[in-house]
């Protein structure tokens, strides 16, 4: 048995299957951490060990999922009432979304919760939705306790108040099932009544013909008015906005067949085409169901993964810690620095708030707020450090929404994308072909003319075409998300594929400041001076300021006045009655001493107190891992530039990596960076800007595609198009190339679906293709194109080791 061997060769945790760094034995089984052992113990005591026999190592590693998270906020009646679905004195029903559900063992454990905790009456799992529905005894436990129970066994519920409004989806799916059922029923019966016509008994008595005809009309009416209603609605909405969408030809075809058939039956002229009509709609709906299912599957993973890793600084017991934004709860004290975004509605406790709400309202004039006032999520602080108390839970979806805000749509996005353009022309051409072919047959045989007209409309419908794009793109976005590369929307992929020049920001982007070695030279600083410096640099989001801030351990704080930041130069302010300047030598010495250019591989940050130079911090720069390889692969077909707000100490080092032809500019202010990108764009270059997301927000917005490289501590900037985890920085070129591959896959899918269309059209215009065959072929073609697109993206992702 391979299972056993695995255990022998490598120490693997019995619970979660992870490698064991430390080995904890319990009950002759090996565990990687106390958390995993605790879960096993709990299950063992409650006789639930089938959990381990259904799948091998089904458990969730508790080190990563952070078990034991407190759900204090669920004690709040109002919050709880928004989550609880039903409650009376005896029982309460609630459903949790649990992203970690992944195998049948999970279902087993979650459905046996009542064995672990007797206050749980019953629990049911929905594997596909990753939800668990729990009924518990209202008097004996509380919502918080239930959530904590789940979290303790590794199934931490993801609670998002906004999720609750998302219950619309199952309803839409249910409606689709109803429609399919009714269409299938009517289609089958109409076929039955059409048999005499098929077999063309010459001598069907007239009253039977009448009866069958009217029965068919009766059965076709619900199909036409109910089952096909979505197509009409969508076509109508499209036309209203003067936009011909894909549902226009379908609706037109359906309407023509229906009216024509009713006319034939009523006038006694023929039997009509009710069988084709209902069959067509039946198969269209089935195709739609399959598409929805596939798309949901792709979306599900993407939605969850696309919660990019934003974190926030929290003040706990007077010390600062950074936590992921979704762990932020009501009552937390948070620190917001210059340029950072406010993640949740909060009350201002300290500092002068000067908040720019342009992300939310589009109005960029900052609003001043004073102590005790409420500041709303989405605002951006300009100036001093703020201390806030969170009064409402964070909604990640709100921040994601903000990222997708209209105000940040780049002008180019309004222009039609590849997909839209093709779809539009295709619809027109299809209509033209259908009309011409129909008119041609009209003289000869009106029956064939109607057949040809509808068959052409149905077979040539560019559905497959319209689907290939979204499916390939969202699959690519999903693949990127798995690799810590989060895109704002699928449109970014198209832009990334066209990039021909790349502009790098230096500090914090190609150099890594976090954990960089720091030392101080010059006059020794006293403890109070250190604290004063700490109070000053606290306000700045510049990577070097952050590094200095982290290095000063002394606690205590001074008030700060007249804080000012000079981009590319330094910061100044009055703390503890002393005026400090921190930054470049030239800035600190007020221009008396020019910057020296001797030192390499390091940034010097000078400090002056009351105009007297004290010394400097030397921060060794580390280039990010893999920079060399990345640059040499990018240089092959792209123009590179480096823009830095800092001094040119490193020019030599950089040119060793980037080569001589790379444009390198130093002492760049944010406006300079923006102008530089504008200049490149005027030369009709497609520019990719890579920055840290804060000091170069303008440039990120101006560029065709802006990527913010982030450490775990990130400052959320809505102006970027993508967020790249810093550890994946070296793979940038792989991502760019993969975007190109995706665009090629889409084109190939287009060609593939065109092939279907041409073959179909060839038969349709000759009148040898009945609408019913066309109706079967169409979903088949759509589905095969969708599968083609997904399969190819997955295949190429695997080849590039992205999956």
């Amino acid at each position, binding site marked *: 048995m391979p299972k056993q061997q695995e255990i022998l060769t490598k120490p693997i945790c019995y619970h979660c299957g992870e490698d064991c760094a430390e080995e904890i034995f319990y009950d002759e089984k090996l565990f990687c951490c106390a958390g995993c052992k605790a879960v096993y113990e709990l299950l063992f005591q409650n006789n639930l060990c*089938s959990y381990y026999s259904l799948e091998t190592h089904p458990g969730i590693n508790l080190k990563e999922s952070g078990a034991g998270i407190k759900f204090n906020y669920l004690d709040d009646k109002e919050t709880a009432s928004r989550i609880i679905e039903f409650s009376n004195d005896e029982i309460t029903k609630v459903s949790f979304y649990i992203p970690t559900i992944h195998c*049948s063992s999970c*279902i*087993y454990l979650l*459905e*046996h919760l*009542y064995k672990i905790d007797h206050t749980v*009456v*019953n629990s*049911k*799992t*929905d*594997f*596909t*939705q990753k939800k668990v*529905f729990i*009924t518990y005894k209202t008097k004996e436990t509380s919502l918080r306790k239930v959530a904590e129970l789940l979290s303790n066994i590794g199934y931490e519920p993801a609670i998002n108040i906004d999720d609750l409004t998302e219950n619309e989806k*199952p309803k839409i*799916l*249910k409606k689709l*099932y*109803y429609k399919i*059922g*009714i269409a299938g*029923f009517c289609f*089958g*019966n109409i076929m*039955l009544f059409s048999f005499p016509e098929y077999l063309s008994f010459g001598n069907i*008595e007239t009253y*039977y013909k009448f*009866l069958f005809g009217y*029965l068919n009309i009766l059965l076709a009416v619900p199909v036409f008015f109910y089952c096909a209603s979505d197509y009409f609605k969508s076509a109508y909405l499209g036309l209203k906005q003067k936009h011909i969408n894909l549902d226009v030809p379908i609706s037109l075809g359906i309407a023509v067949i229906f009216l024509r058939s009713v006319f034939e039956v009523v006038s006694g002229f023929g039997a009509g085409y009710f069988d084709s009509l209902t069959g067509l709609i039946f198969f269209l709906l089935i195709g739609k169901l399959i598409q929805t299912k596939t798309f949901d599957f792709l979306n599900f993973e993407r939605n969850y993964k696309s919660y990019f890793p934003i974190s926030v600084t929290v003040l706990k017991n007077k010390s600062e810690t950074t936590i992921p934004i979704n762990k932020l709860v009501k009552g937390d004290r948070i620190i917001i620095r210059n340029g950072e975004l406010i993640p949740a509605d909060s009350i201002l406790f300290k500092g002068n708030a000067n908040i720019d709400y342009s992300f939310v309202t589009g109005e960029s004039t900052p609003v001043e707020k004073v102590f005790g006032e409420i500041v709303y999520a989405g605002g951006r602080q300009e100036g001093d450090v703020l201390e806030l108390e969170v009064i409402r839970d964070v909604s990640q979806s709100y921040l994601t929404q903000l990222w997708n805000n209209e105000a940040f749509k780049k002008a180019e996005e309004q222009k039609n994308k590849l997909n839209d353009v093709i779809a539009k022309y295709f619809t027109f051409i299809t209509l033209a072909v259908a009309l011409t072919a129909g008119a041609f047959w009209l003289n000869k045989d009106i029956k064939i003319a109607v057949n040809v007209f509808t068959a052409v409309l149905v077979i040539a419908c560019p559905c497959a075409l319209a689907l290939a794009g979204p499916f390939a793109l969202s699959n690519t976005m999903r693949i990127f998300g798995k690799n810590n590369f989060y895109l704002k929307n699928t449109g970014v992929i198209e832009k990334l594929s066209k990039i021909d020049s790349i502009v790098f920001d230096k500090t914090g982007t190609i150099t890594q400041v976090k954990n960089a070695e720091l030392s101080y030279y010059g006059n020794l600083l006293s403890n109070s001076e250190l604290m004063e410096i700490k109070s000053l640099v606290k306000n700045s989001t510049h990577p070097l300021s952050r590094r200095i801030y982290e290095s000063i351990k002394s606690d205590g704080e001074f008030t700060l006045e007249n804080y000012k930041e000079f981009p590319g130069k330094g910061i100044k302010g009055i703390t503890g009655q002393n005026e400090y300047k921190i930054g470049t030598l030239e800035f600190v010495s007020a221009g008396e001493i020019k910057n020296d250019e001797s030192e390499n591989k390091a940034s010097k940050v000078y400090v002056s107190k009351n105009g007297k130079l004290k010394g400097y911090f030397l921060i060794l720069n580390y280039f990010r891992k893999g920079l060399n390889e990345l640059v040499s692969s990018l240089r092959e077909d792209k123009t590179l530039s480096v823009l830095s707000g800092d001094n040119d100490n490193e020019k030599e080092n950089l040119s060793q990596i980037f080569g001589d032809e790379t444009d390198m500019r130093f002492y760049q202010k944010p406006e300079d960076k923006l102008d530089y990108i504008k200049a490149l764009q005027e030369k009709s270059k497609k520019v990719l800007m890579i920055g840290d997301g804060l000091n170069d927000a303008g440039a990120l917005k101006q560029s065709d595609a802006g990527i913010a490289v982030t450490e775990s501590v990130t400052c959320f900037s809505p102006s970027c198009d993508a967020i790249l985890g810093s550890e994946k920085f070296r793979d940038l070129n792989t991502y760019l190339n993969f975007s190109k591959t995706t665009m090629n896959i889409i084109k190939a899918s287009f060609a593939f679906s065109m092939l279907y269309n041409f073959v179909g059209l060839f038969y349709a215009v000759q009148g040898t293709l009945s609408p019913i065959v066309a109706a079967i072929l169409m979903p088949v073609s759509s589905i095969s194109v969708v599968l083609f697109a997904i399969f190819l993206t997955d295949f190429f992702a695997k080849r590039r080791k992205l999956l």
Partner: protein
Amino acid sequence: MEVMFILIGASITVASVFLLAFIWAVKSGQYDDRYTPSVRILFEENTPAKSENKKL
């Protein structure tokens, strides 16, 4: 040939029963989750038949 009317009526009635059964099945949530029950049935002990289960 009048028997045809009866036959047609009978066939439509039977078919309608199946349609109604299908609609009932969708309404009662049998199509909401088509995966989990297939796993659940294999568990050795049964989950207690409580209010939730009656829905199915």
